[in-house]
């Protein structure tokens, strides 16, 4: 047997930590070994320390994948910085891998670069099974050949000294080591662990603290690597959570009291969170028999005066379309959260895509104008729920909130919201209804009207999905349908009129404007910032309202030589003879903006099943900028 890494190394000299303004760390293990917990704790500790943080989960494709398999890699990526961090970044600077196979999975995903510091559990070198020992040593040699800076560390061996269940202790040991590596205050780390394990009792706290401290000590004694990411402790109370938790809390803050859902990844965790937290504010989660029933249930509650929410992902959205059309037609306030994943069909169930924009807009039969919002940050996931309920009631319409798997599982700190009574729904109006007022007394200018809610005397009427007049009487005369459609559509124009033009990131004019929506905000802006630092004339703009679109777009676009969208959904590249600018299919926001502004908007979109790293966007934008420079004029045939 080979000597272990520990024996092979001599105690290095203490070196002062290298100061870095941001770093990317990954922890990967077999699923069930707790690398995610380790990552979340590390993220929370850094946030408490006052660092900017963005944490994403690395999710295995299967529920119980075999041990030591590439498909089973589970864990976290944590990007920390001196300033707020808005995305998961490019390549990992440091990776902790519990075995060599899960590290391969990260290499396959393009998460590493030559020079990445890899800390690999060397206990495998002592494994009684020869085949495993060989796989391990072959892999270490291979990793070194590929240029990674591999340090073998005896994670499991060390854990065995503290616990007889070392498999379940490795994550805390690594957490200790990480915190030493990043020059964090041990007290901060201890209190985080106490907080996390308090519920499990004193023995659990003790054991985990022992593991943590051993990892810490081992790092100080055995490795020379030390990093310091300067932090400024937050001056305001700060919370950190993932986008689905933010949606759940936002629902609670909005005063909605009912969430009807059917489980679907990656939306379900929002309902999981609500199922435990909602009752505290008097709310209820209904798990329906399918997505159609879920939205029907929510519509029933909304119709009866309690605006409700239904949460789903793409396949569920497909099932809900008939009812969404009904809610548009019958003007029922309703909030529909769609946490997008890869499609079509079952697609990439755990992975990110922004592929449901056009389905959200157009999937219902007939014309079904509705409001569509897309939060771009985790903080917005929270606040948009309050906005969504208010818009739904004010405009008497369904509101779709498009989140995605990146927001759903990403964690980010933000100022603790100051909740306000004005966010809560008002009590159901049960006063007598004025008999002279029709149930759809559309204001001819705005299309807005007030609805009678069951319980109001003299307000009785029949809500119907049939074309109807303002009395909700079935339209038998021509002309009624035209007018009712106009009134429902008018509401969107009125809302658009009340919105501000979007703010630009960068200058108000230039060579290239990048338009995005949803969770790509941070990566796009980072790419733009890097290019602007090199004097490129590029700016970006991020839309939060997708229906109606924010005003002033055409004017803004006219000040750039080229406008393009960057999205995580499919578009064709231009590759003659088949794929020409005419036959090519554009990405979804690009289609929308082209139709809306008549500007020849280009797009660059990808469907890798993972967030777009800023470096990749930067590369593409840089190529576009070069083309624009070279050609001197806007030209569609940029690629």
């Amino acid at each position, binding site marked *: 047997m080979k000597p272990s890494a520990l024996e092979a190394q001599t105690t290095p000299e203490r070196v002062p930590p290298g100061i870095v303004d941001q770093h990317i760390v990954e922890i990967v293990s077999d699923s069930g070994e707790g690398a995610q917990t380790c990552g979340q704790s590390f993220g929370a500790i850094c946030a408490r320390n006052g660092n900017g943080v963005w944490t994403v989960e690395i999710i295995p494709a299967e529920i119980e994948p075999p041990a030591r398999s590439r498909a089973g890699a589970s864990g976290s990526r944590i990007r920390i910085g001196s300033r707020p961090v808005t995305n998961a970044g490019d390549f990992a600077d440091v990776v902790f891998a519990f075995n060599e196979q899960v590290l391969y999975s990260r290499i396959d995903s393009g998460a590493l670069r030559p020079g990445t510091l890899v800390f690999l559990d060397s206990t495998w070198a002592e494994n009684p099974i020869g085949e495993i020992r060989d796989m391990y040593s072959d892999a270490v040699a291979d990793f070194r050949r590929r240029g990674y800076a591999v340090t073998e560390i005896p994670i499991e061996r060390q854990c065995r000294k503290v616990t007889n269940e070392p498999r379940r202790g490795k994550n805390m040991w690594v957490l200790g080591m990480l915190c030493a590596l990043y020059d964090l205050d041990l007290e901060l780390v201890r209190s985080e662990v106490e907080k996390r394990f308090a519920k499990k009792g004193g023995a659990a706290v003790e054991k985990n603290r022992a593991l943590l401290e051993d990892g810490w000590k081992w790092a100080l004694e055995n490795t020379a690597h030390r990093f310091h990411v300067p932090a400024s402790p937050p001056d305001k109370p700060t919370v950190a959570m993932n986008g689905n938790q933010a949606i759940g809390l936002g629902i*609670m803050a909005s005063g909605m009291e009912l969430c009807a859902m059917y489980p679907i990844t990656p939306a379900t965790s929002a309902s999981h969170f609500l199922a435990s937290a909602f009752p505290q504010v008097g709310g209820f989660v209904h798990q329906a028999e399918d997505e159609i*029933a879920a939205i*029907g249930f929510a519509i029933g509650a909304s119709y*009866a005066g309690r605006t409700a929410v239904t949460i789903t992902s793409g396949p569920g959205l497909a099932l809900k379309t008939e009812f969404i059309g009904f809610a548009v037609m019958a003007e029922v306030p309703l909030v529909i959260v769609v946490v997008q994943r890869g499609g079509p069909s079952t697609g990439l169930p755990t992975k990110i895509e922004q592929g449901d924009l056009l389905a959200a807009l157009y999937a219902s039969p007939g014309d079904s104008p509705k409001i569509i919002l897309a939060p771009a940050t985790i903080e917005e996931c929270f606040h948009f729920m309050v906005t969504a309920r208010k818009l739904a009631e004010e405009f008497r319409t369904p509101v779709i909130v498009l989140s995605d798997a990146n927001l759903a599982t990403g964690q980010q700190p933000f100022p603790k919201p100051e909740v306000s009574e004005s966010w*809560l729904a008002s009590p159901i109006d049960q006063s007598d209804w004025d008999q002279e007022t029709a149930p759809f007394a559309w204001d001819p200018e705005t299309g807005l009207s007030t609805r009678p809610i069951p319980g109001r005397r003299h307000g009785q009427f*029949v*809500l119907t999905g049939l074309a109807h007049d303002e009395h909700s009487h079935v339209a038998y005369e021509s002309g009624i349908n035209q007018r009712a459609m106009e009134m429902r559509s008018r509401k969107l124009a009125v809302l658009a009129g009340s919105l501000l033009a979007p703010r630009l990131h960068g200058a108000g004019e230039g060579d290239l404007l990048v338009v995005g929506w949803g969770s790509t905000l941070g990566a796009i802006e980072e790419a733009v910032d890097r290019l602007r630092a090199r004097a490129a004339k590029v700016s970006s703009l991020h839309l939060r309202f997708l229906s109606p679109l924010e005003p002033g777009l055409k004017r803004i676009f006219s000040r750039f030589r080229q406008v393009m969208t960057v999205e995580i959904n499919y578009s064709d590249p231009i590759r003659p003879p088949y794929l020409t600018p005419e036959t090519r299919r554009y990405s979804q926001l690009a289609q929308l903006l082209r139709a809306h502004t008549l500007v020849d908007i280009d797009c660059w979109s990808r469907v890798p099943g993972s967030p777009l790293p800023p470096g990749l966007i930067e590369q593409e934008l840089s190529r576009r900028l070069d083309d624009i420079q070279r050609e001197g004029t806007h030209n569609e045939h940029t690629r």
Partner: protein
Amino acid sequence: MNTLAERWELEPRPTVCVLEDYIGAQARWCPGCGDHSVLGAVQRLARDLQLPPERTVTVSGIGCSSRFPHYMKTYGFHGLHGRALPVACGIKSRRPDLNVFVVTGDGDCCAIGTAHWIHAIRYNMDLTILLLDNNIYGLTKMQTSPTTPIGQHSNTHPQGSQLPPLNPISVTLGIRNVSFVAQTVDWNPPHLYATIRAAYEHKGASFVRIFQRCPHFTSNIFAKAQEDPSRILMMTHPGGINLDPNMARAFPNRIEHDPSDLSAARALADREDVFTIGLFYRSAASFRYDHQTAQGLGATNDEKLAALRKALDRFLVS
């Protein structure tokens, strides 16, 4: 804030409601359609029990029968084909104060809405569910329905239906947590009325299948039963649905059936030689999901805000 229920109790109803207070638009069903009788029975029931029209909601799907809400002067919800039950459950979930009637057809309930039917029975929320079963798709013009008898001609099966029909009563009785199952015919107003009334008065999901004549498409099916009362088997029991003896004379063929006996109910439901009417099963002990969905209804804003702050505090990092 007072709870809503308390506030409503403060206002005594000033007037007595008369039948007209429940009659909405002029019914547009064909003359001779059984739906008219059901509508009349529900309107009379509402009047007799003085159900406040503003606190009564009639929910339906799509079909001839689902036009029902338009003809009531209560609140109405004429929704989507097959989806009346989820909507009704949603209404009831946070508004226990509303009386909710559901009107559905054999296509609406037993084909496109089957999943919801099974689960609504299981949820056992306080709803009165009326299945208007004419053994055919009426609105879309005579297609086979899941309850169409073998051999019956339709536009989709011109050679006659081949599949054994689904038995809505047997299915419903097979669902755990079922709490009220009855069957009646549209052409005997006293029995129809007594059945719907018992269903309304039962607390929980009451499922009533009504054999409903369709003079256009299935006049042959129920004519035999109408002409020959011996083809109808009336279940009787002190705890069942009982007619006054004069009225009961229309149904000479009777059987004593204890509605708490589920196995006997299932055996009776499976009989295919007769139209069995009356109360198959009633249980007051079934779990009520609406008791669960209504939890937390009285929470005040102050309580909500305090709980919300606490929930947010769990995510504090500083």
